[in-house]
């Protein structure tokens, strides 16, 4: 087994353990469980980082060329984003871990079923823009997943308070204010990254094919996604939107991302189709 795959599988298992840890915390509310899960997640993140570096070294090119690599990097970006939020929100960020670690684990699991062979890099991808464009875009997706997760948590908590059912969910989830700020911060980091991802993509396209924009399905969906998040951010900053509407819109943005990442990349032929050349 190649080193990168070995560390990848190790990271997957450790993420699964961290997920269980966060679930235990969600159930028992014991501080020790959250702290334990956090350290396990850190270990998983370290192993995952090693796996990415090993992949780069073993392949000789940046690991953003197929579905396995992209999904793995996305999971890494998600965990990184979570660690950023955890720093920022301390104790209140813990419950978010119970929403994020399963997503990261599922992404890894999905990625583990993709072909992992290292193939010669097609000429079109031999560019410095590959790591820049791909890494920036995938990082932005990580933060959009976080925005959606905190949005879902917000909607759950708001429902509890409005319906005046102050049970387990009410007691476990952080305050509305905190959840809203998590959502906002994720957007404020994710949106500039997405913008930069689209710009670098256009510059690269100009270099490779001589045109900045060719309405390829991926480009179209990325633009839709960009418009959704731009609208959300505008309403948030200019009109003062917050809470429920912002949470819903970040979930809508997440759905456009799902289409752009899974449906378009897998089934619609274009420059981002991963299945085309490795399968």
């Amino acid at each position, binding site marked *: 087994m190649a080193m990168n795959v070995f560390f990848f599988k190790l990271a997957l298992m450790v993420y699964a353990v961290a997920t269980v840890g966060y679930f235990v915390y969600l159930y028992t509310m014991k501080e020790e469980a959250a702290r334990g899960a956090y350290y396990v997640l850190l270990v998983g993140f370290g192993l995952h980082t090693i796996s990415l570096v090993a992949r780069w070294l073993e392949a000789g090119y940046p690991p953003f060329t197929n579905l396995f690599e992209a999904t793995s990097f996305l999971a890494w970006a998600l965990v990184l984003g979570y660690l950023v939020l955890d720093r920022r929100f301390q104790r209140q960020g813990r419950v978010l871990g119970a929403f994020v670690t399963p997503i990261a684990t599922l992404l890894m699991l999905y990625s583990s079923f993709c072909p992992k062979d290292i193939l010669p890099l097609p000429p079109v991808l031999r560019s410095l823009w590959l790591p820049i464009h791909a890494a920036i875009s995938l990082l932005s997706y990580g933060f959009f997943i976080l925005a959606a997760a905190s949005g879902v948590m917000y909607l759950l908590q708001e429902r509890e308070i409005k319906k005046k059912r*102050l*049970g387990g969910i009410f007691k476990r989830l952080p*305050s509305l204010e905190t959840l809203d700020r998590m959502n906002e911060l994720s957007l404020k980091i994710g949106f500039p990254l997405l913008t930069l991802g689209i710009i670098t993509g256009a510059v690269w396209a100009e270099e490779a094919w001589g045109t900045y924009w060719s309405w390829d399905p991926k480009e179209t969906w990325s633009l839709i996604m960009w418009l959704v998040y731009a609208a959300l951010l505008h309403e948030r900053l200019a009109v003062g939107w917050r809470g*429920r509407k912002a949470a819903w819109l970040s979930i809508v943005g997440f759905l456009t991302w799902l289409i752009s990442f899974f449906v378009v990349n897998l089934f619609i032929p274009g420059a981002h189709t991963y299945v085309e050349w490795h399968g």
Partner: protein
Amino acid sequence: MSNGTAKDQIVLLGLNHRTAPVEIREKLSFAGRDFDPVSLFLELPLVREAFFLSTCNRVEILFVTREPEAAVEGVKEVWARANDLPVSSFEPHLYQFRNREAVKHLFRVASGLDSLVLGEPQILGQLKEAYRRAAERRATGVILNRLLHKTFSVAKRIRSETGIGSHAVSVSYAAVELAKKIFGDLREKSAMLIGAGEMAELAAQHLLAQGVEKLIVANRTLSRAIELAERFRGEAISLEELEDYLLKVDIVISSTGAPHYILTAEQVKRLMRPRKMRPIFFIDIAVPRDIEPAVNEIENVFLYDIDDLKAVVEENLAYRRKEAARAERIIEEEALKFEAWLEQLEVYPTIVALRQKAEAIRRKELEKTLSHLRGKVDEETIEALETLTKSLVNKLLHDPIIYLKNRYHRDGQQVVDFTRKIFNLDGEAPLESLPPEIHLPDEAEEKTKH
């Protein structure tokens, strides 16, 4: 029961909100008297250690004695005499616990399981204060010192391992808890009080204690508003200015005597855009209600009326009752541990005496040997002899000491007496060996019957 080798016993005598009306409790509480009741009880020769606790819900005396029956009578009499009451006036209200039951009761009191409001934390502070006073007077000794320290740690353990103290069980605290789930940190937030009333003022007080930065008081009569504002260091406004100020505040507590809604959903809806959609939390504790219920349906607006809050409190109380059952198990476990310590305390002097005797013999014999060997051996050999004798003594004593500790709680004083005799711990000189006793046949037979 009471002979020379009687054990120390822990006795607790008291009355609380369930067993006695306040008229009796207050008469026995020594409140406002300028002497410490603990010294009064210590004057009784039978009372070896004492501790006195008096709160608005209970008066209790905890003491250590070797003759509990007589000591209880003595304490009751002193208690009655000091307050000019006949013993019979409060005797039927008294409860009495001994040893493990007393320990358990104290643990329960400290963790709030015996409180009027289940799980309330104040009592622990009162216990600590009472202990500080008793300890200053040296009224507590080995047993009560240990017991009270244990009590504090058990209360702490129960607080951290069970939910006995979590979730608000009063309407005003429930409102504060809700506000925290909406706004997170209450610092930099502002609140408004519309109308006045005990519960509204209490809630305002809690909010201020949680760090709410600014309080605005609105009232139909401005003079009353000014008076309240002064008390809470807030700003007084008239009801006409209400809508302007609603743009600024985050939490509104309303409790006017108005016969109709003073705020409608339409009004509140209009406020939201200029508020930049910032959330607002209305607490309506007025009956009839001040705020139209439909307000709760507006985005980023939350409304709780008095019945909603009462339902929350009821639910939280049910939760605490469930947690109380878990606390009882911890108390049972800790009380057993304390009992084991108490028993070990009885054997402790014997173990010390045993060790001291062995050590004295070891030193004496070692010195004797070394004086013969002076000059003939080096430092290393002396050290080896030192280690050898020490480990001989330790190994020989190990089993008897373990036996003492293990058997004491089953066979009691008998084991201690036997050990003291066997090792001659109470004699001055070494025992002389006596000629063997002559057993007559019938005496021997008697022995085998046993």
